[in-house]
């Protein structure tokens, strides 16, 4: 490809175009001078050093998959950059890597979570749920004493040397009930006995796993309970309220006799539907998507929240764009003095952190104490943020304030790029200023800014921060059974549905995010198609 262009440049006497120049530079670089080679080797060396370090860490952690990925990526990068060809790859490789890490991986992972029941009560594995249930089911035998404990060892088997309330020493091991033994006492506590080695505190800690499993029956009767220790220096008598049958996969409540079995919902469930929590994480396919679209309590508000989300996004884009455009045109007029200063002033709202601005607006709009009602309106009590309709207007006003400087900047740039000759020619042809703007400037402007308007739409469609910080979706809809409000947009409603109160439903939240992603993506694709048509028109 490069040779072709070189030939073109050589054969044609016409001065080279910008594109040809760039191609020539690329070709020269591919041939590589010494300096470039050094830079290349040094930067690749740094990258490889980091890759090797990452490999060492990953391999020591036995993260085989990640190690393989890092190794493969490192090899591919070396191959690409040491090769004399593969010019496009040299430019594309880094961005593709980032696309994969930050976009594709995130999307796939969200999709995976959406197909699980990951959420409150279903965070771990079945094994973890069982062990947690069993440890919570332990009940200390009522009015039983504390047994001061010394952990002892014989031939690798641990035993408990405890001092009973009468002051006698008793010894037992897992499976062997307590028996009275002769022992050495220190401050009334048995500390050693013949035939056993006493463990020091450090040894106790080093053998934590064995200590946790050390269960010494108090007597031959299992109803008397068994001694367990959690800190290695005191033992207590416990009975268990649950029994786990691993073969059948059931939990039995020993007090009521209820049998809880694994029926494939990710928790032990009794015959009448009662669940034992914690449960565990399972794959549930498309259930979350079905729930998101059919759940009665969500479906009602979903409709008007969706409508408001569209209204909010479209009005926000429209209002910020037209105000920004209007100001850009006004300040683009060379006759205005000191316009640099005005421009700087107009950009200020864009320069403040949005979060701060929103909180300040929330304060300004407070009904009884806000600056707007108290000072500007002389003590009026207008419910800016608490009336369903007015709150929507307030949200749009605040978003206009936050968003117009960006549009102002963009439009100022785009307007300056439109040659003055065009409007001069139109004036000569007798066009009025409004016609010049509508028929010449606006279409040219739209070609440049439409992609930005689409991006702004997508941003506002998911403008969680504004809603969350200004009204938190309020005022609440008193008729809805979920805590949704009149200014909630889809993303803030999803947040409330999936994460309110003590329940976190990551699966449902992920399913909703994917649905929202699909909506935004479809709109963006359709709009971009239309922009292309606009470009061709010109």
């Amino acid at each position, binding site marked *: 490809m490069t040779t072709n262009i070189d030939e073109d440049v050589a054969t044609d006497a016409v001065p080279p175009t910008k594109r040809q120049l760039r191609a020539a530079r690329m070709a020269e*670089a591919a041939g590589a001078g010494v300096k470039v080679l050094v830079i290349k080797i040094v930067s690749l060396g740094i990258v490889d050093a980091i890759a090797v370090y990452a490999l060492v860490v990953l391999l020591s952690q036995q993260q085989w998959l990640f190690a393989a990925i890092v190794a493969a990526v490192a090899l591919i990068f070396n191959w690409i950059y040491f090769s004399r060809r593969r010019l496009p790859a040299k430019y594309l490789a880094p961005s593709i890597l980032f696309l994969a890490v930050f976009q594709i991986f995130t999307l796939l992972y969200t999709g995976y979570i959406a197909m699980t029941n990951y959420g409150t009560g279903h965070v771990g594995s079945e094994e973890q749920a069982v062990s947690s249930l069993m440890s919570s089911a332990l009940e*200390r035998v009522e009015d039983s004493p504390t047994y001061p404990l010394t952990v002892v060892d014989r031939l690798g088997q641990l035993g408990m040397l405890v001092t009973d309330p009468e002051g006698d020493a008793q010894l037992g091991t897992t499976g062997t009930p307590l028996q009275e033994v002769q022992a050495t006492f220190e401050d009334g506590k048995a500390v050693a006995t013949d035939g056993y080695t006493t463990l020091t505190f450090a040894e106790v800690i080093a053998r934590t796993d064995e200590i946790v499993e050390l269960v010494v029956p108090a007597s031959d009767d299992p109803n008397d309970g068994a001694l367990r220790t959690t800190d290695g220096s005191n033992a207590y008598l416990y009975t268990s309220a649950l029994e786990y049958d691993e073969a059948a996969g059931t939990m039995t409540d020993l007090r009521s006799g209820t049998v809880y079995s694994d029926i494939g919902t990710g928790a032990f469930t009794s015959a009448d539907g009662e669940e034992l929590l914690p449960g565990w994480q399972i794959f549930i396919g498309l259930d979350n998507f079905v729930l998101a679209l059919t759940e009665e309590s969500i479906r009602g508000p979903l409709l008007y929240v969706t409508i408001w989300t569209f209204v909010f996004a479209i009005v926000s884009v429209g209002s910020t764009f037209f105000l920004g455009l209007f100001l850009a045109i006004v300040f683009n007029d060379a006759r205005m003095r000191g316009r640099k200063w005005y421009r700087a002033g107009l950009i200020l709202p864009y320069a403040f952190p949005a979060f701060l601005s929103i909180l300040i607006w929330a304060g300004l709009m407070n009904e009884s104490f806000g600056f707007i009602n108290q000072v500007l309106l002389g003590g009026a009590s207008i419910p800016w943020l608490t009336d369903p309709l007015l709150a929507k207007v307030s949200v749009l006003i605040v978003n206009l304030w936050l968003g117009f400087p960006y549009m102002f900047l963009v439009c100022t740039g785009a307007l300056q790029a439109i040659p003055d000759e065009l409007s001069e020619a139109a004036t000569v042809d007798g066009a009025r200023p409004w016609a010049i703007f509508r028929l010449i400037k606006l279409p040219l402007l739209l070609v440049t800014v439409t992609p930005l308007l689409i991006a702004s739409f997508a941003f506002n469609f998911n403008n969680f921060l504004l809603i969350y910080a200004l009204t938190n979706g309020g005022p609440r809809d008193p008729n809805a059974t979920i805590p949704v409000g009149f200014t909630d947009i889809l993303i803030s409603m999803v947040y409330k549905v999936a994460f309110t109160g003590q329940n976190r439903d990551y699966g449902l939240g992920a399913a909703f995010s994917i649905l929202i992603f699909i909506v935004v993506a479809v709109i963006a694709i359709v709009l971009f198609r239309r922009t292309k048509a606009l470009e061709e028109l010109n």
Partner: protein
Amino acid sequence: MKVNKKSAAAAGALITVGMLALAGCAGGGATPSESEEASAGAVTVWVDAERVDALQGAADAYTEETGVEVELVGKDNATIKDDFIQQVPTGRGPDITMGAHDWLGELSTNGVVAPLELGDSASGYLDVAITASTYDGTVYMLPYAVENIAVLRNADIIPEASTSFDDMIAKGLAAGLTQPFVVEQGAEGNPYHLYPFQTAFDAPVFGSDDNGYNAEDLQLGSAGGEQFAAWLSSQGKNGTAVFNTDIDGAIAKENFLNGTSAFWLTGPWNVGSAVDAGINVAIDPVPSPTGEVAQPFAGVKGFFLSSESENAVAATDFLVNYLGTEEVQLELFEAGNILPALKSAADTASSDPIIEGFATVGADAVPMPAIPAMGSVWEYWGIAQAEVINGADPTTTWQKLAADVQAAIE
């Protein structure tokens, strides 16, 4: 040439970051097992970032005494609970985390906490602290501090404590104040701060039994609840306007600090700024609108043991036998200025009249319910109160609240 140098350097930088990101993804899991190899006994503790220094001394002393390394990790208080729930099941969580008792329902439902046996030391703690640390009959938390709200009184304006709610308002009006009493509210209400008044009408949220609060016994909608709603309405927008949902935390604070209001129902976290503003602060019990005692919620702070801890014995020993000592509890008290949960430490701390004031109110406080059903209550409770304050019919609003909560729990 220039373009090429730049792009080569940029590409190098990009790849570097990419590799780091990849290594970082997997490297997150590296720390616990690495430190595990370094020493047989190491305990990782997640601590509210503001209390790391207070705990550092105790951690060092414990290491010296037992040889067990204690690694304190400062965490943002707002994210610590969700992080704990997410990371414990992966095996990468800490052994111990600092937290509050009202997390218990969630932590236990997710199976990420292990029971603690306090043994005989349990009797050394304040009763409210032990009740709050118990969930479904089992103790899961080592308590270190008890927090509750009380009335801050500007003693320069009102020299004497008030005997009842009406007396408080009357005293304030007599002193020439138009808004004598402030309490933090908001567009969605703030039931935590109004709870003492509700309990004065004998309308707790849940009934309780031996195992703690009983989710099946919702008492919110009892006759007392409706009386409370009627009273709240009479003190709202269409009545005396003592309560106003436009008064948020910042406005309440400002009114008290500039002397517009002489009574402020708030917690110990606001005492510092009132004292700094030069106000002669006295701590009073919450004045009751009825003859009954107004009982605020108690929030108990403490430490939880992870159910997946690989150093459970050392971690338990550190918690029960070390953090439960008077010395450590006092150190934590000095960092946070909240009443210690251990009786002996609480007595020492109560030599300060402000702490003593809160402790007196705390003696009547009830632990905030930690059962998961409470989440459903929070969703509807504040909004209903805000509606009542703003003039909605108290009886029907309250009945709807009770019905909504009941439906959400089921």
